[in-house]
């Protein structure tokens, strides 16, 4: 990576960048400092990654390089140079030349980052026209060529399609094609692989790596340390607007100096963290989790031959779940992994009795559970509870926390002051103060909301807790706290957990046994170490290979 020749001139050079946001466009509106004293440079052929959790200011920093911070931003810097020129003095017209021409931007989730009403070719063409790269007549051919460069198969067909007609990975690569169409020397990628399956993520990262190898600079923004580890040359760790640590990737990720970086790395769940808390103690050591008792003979939940199809009338039906069977023992954690479209969401609905299967059955503690008329199921509902990915949408938007939890306690016949006491006890158990009772979930942070959801789910003392991607939308550190909490509760109450996730690391950390799903069927199941370390099936192997390189913690 480091050549003997002198390093090429940096594409962007930033020194002491500070960004404030005003709360409104009025002259004296109060300002909040969002980025403080950030300095870095990106050179051609180099990948610089900015990592941080939400609120770290990483995206804001990236946007200042394009002048896209918005009208409420106030930017100051000792140095802000793009391609050698002082960007602090840029006019709007000058910025427009930079955007797309000198620096290209790739955002996350191309489904919402590309205009859904226009074809992929038109979107790429817009860049070509704006920067006058080719005459109009030649733009379609150039777009096809660009799609080919980023590895989109059958580009001559794809160029006339709309974003929703492409799969997630192809869409993202089309987005990259539009970002590089004017041959910018620097690419800024802001969470480019979020919302993508693991295997697809690998393809997108490879595409970006190729650009770097060909001489472009890459500024990668991500919260995902593993993704960053595979591709970055330099890493900048940001927290709440400030740089915590920065340096060569191997140093920052391999032997971090700062405590925050160490905590961040330690909080990543994996096989290595199994049985230990993800949140570190004061002296930085890993504390073991309380032991769990698994009664392998006592089956608490059993699915047999489940099958569910969707689609009505004459249209051919979609099979969402096909011949799925597994069991969950008392005190055990069963992980269900799969990419999107694998059917795991439908399995969740079936386990909860929210839809009935077309074939097969679910048994709860030996008794029939699904298919069953709702009135016969109702009395036993307290035994199976749910934690969803987005807690906010699982709360009635008009209710306070107290009412939200009360809905669940009421189901066990506890009302009035006894219900409030129980709610307070539950909140304490999940680490929240009882002052939260009067608050609206909207005013709580994501981690707090998920704890409220857990408290609510625990109210009826369930035997099985179904967790559907419960930490996927949380920051790493918050995820660590929530996973530790779930482990504690499990050890105390002996609750069984069905943990559905597409994140193999998390599953490896929490689960005893795992089920791998693909295209509505179970591909492989068994002990979690067996399946992940010694996979028998081709698909499982591909999944594990696609994971970004391990980060040595």
């Amino acid at each position, binding site marked *: 990576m480091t050549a003997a020749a002198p390093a090429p001139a940096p594409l962007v050079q930033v020194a002491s960048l500070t960004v404030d946001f005003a709360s409104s466009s009025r002259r004296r509106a109060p300002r909040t400092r969002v980025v403080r004293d950030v300095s870095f440079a990106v050179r051609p052929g180099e990948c610089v990654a900015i990592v941080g959790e939400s609120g770290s200011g990483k995206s804001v920093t990236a946007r200042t390089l394009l002048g896209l911070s918005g009208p409420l931003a106030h930017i100051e810097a000792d140095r802000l140079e793009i391609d050698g020129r002082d960007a602090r003095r840029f006019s709007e017209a000058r910025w427009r030349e930079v955007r797309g021409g000198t620096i290209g931007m790739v955002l996350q989730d191309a489904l919402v980052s590309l205009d859904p009403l226009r074809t992929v070719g038109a979107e790429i063409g817009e860049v070509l026209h704006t920067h006058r790269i080719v005459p109009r007549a030649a733009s379609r051919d150039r777009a096809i060529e660009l799609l080919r460069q980023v590895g989109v198969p059958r580009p001559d067909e794809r160029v006339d399609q709309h974003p929703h007609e492409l799969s997630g990975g192809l869409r993202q690569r089309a987005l990259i094609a539009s970002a590089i169409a004017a041959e910018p020397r620097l690419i800024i990628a802001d969470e480019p692989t979020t919302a993508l399956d693991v295997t697809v993520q690998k393809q997108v990262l490879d595409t970006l790596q190729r650009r770097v190898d060909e001489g472009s600079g890459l500024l990668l923004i991500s*919260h995902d340390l593993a993704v960053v580890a595979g591709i970055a040359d330099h890493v900048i760790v940001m927290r709440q607007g400030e740089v915590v640590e920065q340096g060569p990737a191997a140093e920052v990720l391999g032997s971090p100096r700062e405590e925050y970086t160490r905590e961040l790395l330690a909080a990543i769940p994996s096989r290595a963290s199994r049985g230990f808390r993800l949140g570190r103690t004061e002296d930085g050591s890993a504390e073991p989790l309380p032991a769990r008792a698994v009664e392998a003979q006592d089956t608490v939940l059993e699915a047999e031959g489940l099958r569910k199809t969707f689609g009505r009338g004459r249209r051919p039906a979609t099979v969402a779940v096909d011949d799925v069977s597994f069991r969950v023992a008392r005190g055990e954690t069963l992980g269900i992994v799969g990419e999107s479209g694998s059917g795991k969401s439908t399995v969740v609905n079936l386990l909860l009795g929210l839809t009935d299967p077309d074939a097969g059955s679910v048994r709860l503690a030996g008794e029939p559970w699904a298919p069953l008329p709702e009135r016969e199921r109702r*009395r036993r509902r307290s035994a199976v509870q749910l934690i969803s990915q987005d807690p906010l949408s699982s709360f009635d938007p008009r209710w306070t926390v107290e009412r939200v939890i009360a809905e669940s306690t009421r189901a066990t016949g506890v009302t009035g002051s006894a219900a409030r006491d129980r709610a307070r006890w539950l909140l304490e158990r999940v680490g929240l103060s009882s002052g939260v009772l009067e608050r609206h979930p909207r005013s709580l*942070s994501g981690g707090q909301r998920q704890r409220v959801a857990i408290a609510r789910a625990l109210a009826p003392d369930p035997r099985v807790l179904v967790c559907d991607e419960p930490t996927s939308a949380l920051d790493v550190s918050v995820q660590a706290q929530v996973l530790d909490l779930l482990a504690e509760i499990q050890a105390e109450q002996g609750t069984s957990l069905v943990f559905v996730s597409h994140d193999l690391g998390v599953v490896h950390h929490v689960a005893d046994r795992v089920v791998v799903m693909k295209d509505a069927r179970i591909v492989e199941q068994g002990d979690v170490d067996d399946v992940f370390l010694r996979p028998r099936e081709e698909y499982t192997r591909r999944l594990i290979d696609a994971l970004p390189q391990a980060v040595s913690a």
Partner: protein
Amino acid sequence: MSALDLARRPRVDIGADGAPAPRAARPAPPAAVLVSAAVLAVIALFVVWPGLFTSFDPVRSDVANSLQAPSAQHWFGTDRLGRDVWARVVYGARYSVLIGIAATAIGVVGGTIIGIGAGLSGAFVRGRAGRLLDEALTRVIDVLSSLPAILLAMLVVTFTGPGIGNIAVAIGIAGMPLYARVVRSQTMVVVRTDYVAHAAVYGRSRAAVLTEHVLPNGLTAVPVLAAIDIGTSILAVSGLSFLGLGPQPPTPEWGVMLSEARDILRIAPWAGIFPGLFITATVISVTVVGRWLQRAADRRIS
């Protein structure tokens, strides 16, 4: 091995775990809203206490004084029959406003019932029957929306003759589709939300889910919609009266006044300008206040 993929949903923006988000200060209503509220207050006084504003009789003719330009004695001048225009405007407020409110009420009640029926039909009635019910009710909404208020009123009046009640009903019926559509789509969304599904996980009965979740969340848009719709109703009432389908002369309804003024417009424009001005002012004020209420309601949710 480790991986930290984020799921398909966009990331939830979370602050540091612990610090509560400061509650946004409720802004004072802008000047336009205050002015509009004041206008509405005045109109309301016109309705309940017209005698406070004028001593002239709005209905009795005084042909000797006809077609007088606005003056100190007759602030808005007099019309063809010598009646004081200002007095007629003041006394006329009650017709437009009260009939407008009545018509909106009819629309709200009818439209909401249809909307709830259609929105819930998929969830509460299984399978094909549910979809058919929704289709049927949507057709009903379509039929109602195919006729603008004016034509519907004309149909009703042909059969029953002109009058206050008839046009209130006609405008009300023509206004139902607005509420029916909004309530239908909102209830459909609510029925499919996560929190309604979670209620099932706690074993709540369908009736409980309906009363505690679906209705309160499905009908949130209605009150504010109705507030703004009163303006539309007032326009419809005066329009129908203008055409002669509503209250008949000598009732000082604002629309009737305008139709009487049409023939004498060249020589006595004041007879036409002022009633229309008051209709416009009332409708604008209702709309401004209504929209502000809507923004306030939206702010409370987000």
